[in-house]
């Protein structure tokens, strides 16, 4: 169910250029089509600059989802590698890696992002993705570290060492495959978080800048006139809520489906 809805959302956003009724940034008719409510021609209405809101939601979704997926990819990679190494290390190295992680976890992410993104007047999308990813891997790293720490003492790891496997082989070929489930679940839930974060930053004006459409900055254009022109903010907001909800439901479902294999083989 959740996967179905997600597929529809993703496909719709990917096919935005094909199915969007209008160019998202084109001002159709500033006199006659300024801030029109939803109608047959414009199902989500038009905004203050007479742009089609439906088209902008589709294109905005492409950007929001793309940013979320790519930055999650970055953070999952960083978090997995760091967490795995921190969990497998022993002695002073383990202590240093873990304390460094605790320190990173204590930095408020939004403030850090504002500070970093303030460097650019208009941050390139690539930078935005990398910065989002590079600040989002600590929780996952801690999760992976905990799992690796527990698995490290298991007999099959001692067994792998007794077979003559090297440390990197043990860690990446014998231990990590056992951590895939929590990583997949955390990543799925993480995508939802990043969408909200991206929306929040764009809303604050430091993420995706206008006139490019993202769900966050679309909401930003609406609130001043929300009572009169509710559709301008409502539809991108609904898109966010629906997408995040779907990702969360999907994450929970994955957890339920994948968990039995983990516990069933104890």
């Amino acid at each position, binding site marked *: 169910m959740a996967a179905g809805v997600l597929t529809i959302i993703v496909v719709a956003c990917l096919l935005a250029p094909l199915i969007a009724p209008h160019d998202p940034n084109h001002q159709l008719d500033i006199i006659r089509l300024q801030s029109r409510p939803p109608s047959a021609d414009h199902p989500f209405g038009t905004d203050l600059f007479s742009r089609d809101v439906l088209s902008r939601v589709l294109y905005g979704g492409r950007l929001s989802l793309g940013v979320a997926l790519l930055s999650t990819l970055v953070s999952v990679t960083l978090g997995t590698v760091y967490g795995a190494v921190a969990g497998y290390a022993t002695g002073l190295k383990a202590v240093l890696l873990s304390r460094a992680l605790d320190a990173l976890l204590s930095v408020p992410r939004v403030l850090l992002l504002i500070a970093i993104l303030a460097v650019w007047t208009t941050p390139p999308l690539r930078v935005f993705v990398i910065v989002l990813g590079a600040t989002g891997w600590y929780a996952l790293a801690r999760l992976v570290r905990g799992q690796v720490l527990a698995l490290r003492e298991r007999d*099959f790891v001692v067994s792998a*060492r007794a*077979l003559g496997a090297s440390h990197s082989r043990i860690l990446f070929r014998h231990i990590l495959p*056992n951590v895939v489930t929590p990583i997949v679940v955390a990543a799925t839930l993480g995508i939802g978080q990043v969408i909200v974060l991206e929306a929040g930053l764009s809303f604050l004006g430091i993420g995706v800048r206008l006139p490019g459409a993202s769900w966050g900055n679309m909401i930003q254009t609406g609130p001043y006139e929300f009572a009169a022109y509710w559709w301008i903010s409502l539809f991108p907001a609904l898109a966010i809520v629906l997408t995040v909800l779907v990702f969360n439901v999907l994450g929970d479902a994955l957890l339920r489906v994948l968990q039995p294999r983990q516990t069933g083989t104890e």
Partner: protein
Amino acid sequence: MNEPLLSVENLRTYFYTGSAIARSVDGVSFSIGQGETLGIVGESGCGKSVTALSILRLIQQPGRIEAGSRIMFEGKDLVTLDDSAMRHVRGNRISMIFQEPMSALNPVFTVGDQVAEVARVHGTGSRRDAWARAVEMLTLTGIPAPGDRARQYPHQLSGGMRQRVLIAMALMMNPALIIADEPTTALDVTIQAQILDLLTDLQTRLGTSILMITHDLGVIAETASRVVVMYGGEVVEEAEVKQLFADAHHPYTEGLMNAMPQIGAGRERLNVIPGTVPPPTAWPSGCRFRDRCSFAWEMCEKEHPPLYQISAGHTSRCHLAVEPERRADPHLPLVEQVGATL
């Protein structure tokens, strides 16, 4: 006997736990000949598993093999070997069979993958060759339909099957020595017998030496030719199996024998050795068994007994060797006397 395959000399493995030092293995020496099965027997905490792990240098922090220990194998001292050379020995020249077939297999890979992995680790041949050899090894261990079984996950196999898989992994590189650490403890008695038969059969066919570690004298009787009895991190007696069963010298070995249920002995209570193994952080002075021994006298407290030569190939770490007349005069062991006054 010609040059032994493995010769452990004065092995000491200590664990540094906070303030105390646990001297889990404290000066153990023994050797294994080509194609021989040596049994190490002793109760929990006597240091037999730590000895096994030390041979493959699998001791983890805070444990350490102390300087002065030597483990000679194929002309090399394993204690001082560098890490990459040691990895070449592990699984390749010396392999290990673990106690828990349940947890010694990785739950997320098929058993065939795991057997083949041994060859992959040691970088011999292609993926396909490794798989073919894995199936061959599974066949050798008597697993029915090995080709199909190889594609199954560990949780789909029974305990006995899994143990066969572990044996297949151990045989993969045709090692000179297999260390079997309580290979049958987690199995049913009937499966135990099958696994032991399999091991002895494979040994005669392949000429591999086996170090059989167990707490079960029955397993020793069935598989080993020579046996080392360990207590308190030390070797307390060593003899040919027949000799040991006929004429055990050390009171601890006698206690182990008496603790075995006898067929036809009626429904008596099983004999037990009173007390427990003292903690490895505080071995008693003198003889480490004296608290639990029914012959202990002053000398046992003052003097740590050396390994006395009893007869050819038979040694015992007990002062009774020099004062055999005391064997006629047993008394309550110290721990029971203390227990009675409490």
